[in-house]
């Protein structure tokens, strides 16, 4: 059917592809901690020690947890298993609201208190017109 050289080149491509994907897989696996953009409250709970480096935590802003003081903003990040209190002062993105995703960058004081230096709103995958949203809420 095909010549010997064609088969050889075919297997050569297969082997290259296999070895490269395997190495990329191993690299990503060993770097997992750096590939994730943020840690969830449960992952923070599981940390062996709290180091002083800047980290990012993320999850949902717990309903009725936002507390605005004069220059300080308090809210709770939850993944519905564990919770972390966040203290922050600074600019807040427009989409930051209760019941929505958030990523906070800053320092862990202890496993339930986080001092944020920057807040990013995480958007979810739902796209719909406002009318549909209100219709959904009425249900």
């Amino acid at each position: 059917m095909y010549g010997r050289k064609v088969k050889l080149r075919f297997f050569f491509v297969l082997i290259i592809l296999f070895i490269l994907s395997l190495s990329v897989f191993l690299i990503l696996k060993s770097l997992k901690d750096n590939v994730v953009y943020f840690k969830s409250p449960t992952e923070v709970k599981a940390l062996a020690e709290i180091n002083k480096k800047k980290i990012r935590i993320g999850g949902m802003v717990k309903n009725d947890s936002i507390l605005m003081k004069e220059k300080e903003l308090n809210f709770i990040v939850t993944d519905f298993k564990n919770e972390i209190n966040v203290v922050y002062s600074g600019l807040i993105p427009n989409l930051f609201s209760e019941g929505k995703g958030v990523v906070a960058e800053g320092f862990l004081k202890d496993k339930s208190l986080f001092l944020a230096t920057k807040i990013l709103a995480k958007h979810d995958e739902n796209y719909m017109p406002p009318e549909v949203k209100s219709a959904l809420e009425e249900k």
Partner: protein
Amino acid sequence: MFKYFEPNKIFSITSKAPKYVLLLFIIILSIGLTEALIFSPEDYKQSQSVRIMYVHVPAAWTCLGIFSIITFLSTTGYIFKIRNFFLISKSLAPSGFVFNIIALVTGSIWGKPTWGTWWAWDARITSMLILALFYILYLIAWRIYDDNDKAFKATSFITILGIINVPIIKYSVDWWNTLHQPASINILSKSSIHLSMLYPLLIMTAAFALFSLLIFLMKYNTELIKIKNKGLDRL
């Protein structure tokens, strides 16, 4: 079997086709843009900035699609020694690269009002940037090798390297915590995007695909002229 394409025959098609493709592209793009910018509703949460998505997502899809096609053609071209496939890949690459840059830039513009940052080193965004680097590498490889055989080998190797990144881009939002939201459109399960927003998105995707086809035909035409000038009668 692919060896005996006659440049003259292909040339007669590729030199006439662009004007029809251009016409179709203009029609589809104007329908898509009016749908996306005027008729489609605003989003319940991001309001008007959702309209950036109608450029961002189709651009990202097109650049991923083109890279996959280039990889397929380059590797089969390398295995079966089909010169024509390399020329097709070479002519496809520039529009893929342009759409990659468009996806990155529009994503950045969308990210500022929505996330509150222009750029985040999360897995999806970083892997998209890496794809752009592979596009650059691919385009440079064609420039630096004068010898066609060397260019064929180098570019197919680059595409094999780069294609590993494509499933990483696709699944990055599922495998790791990312700032970028997961996919809204699923072929197998229900999409989490409303139909009134899905249609303009699909029309814009068709428009971008047609634009890539147009640029491809023009580039490919030039390649064929080069071959004719060299006096080769076969690809």
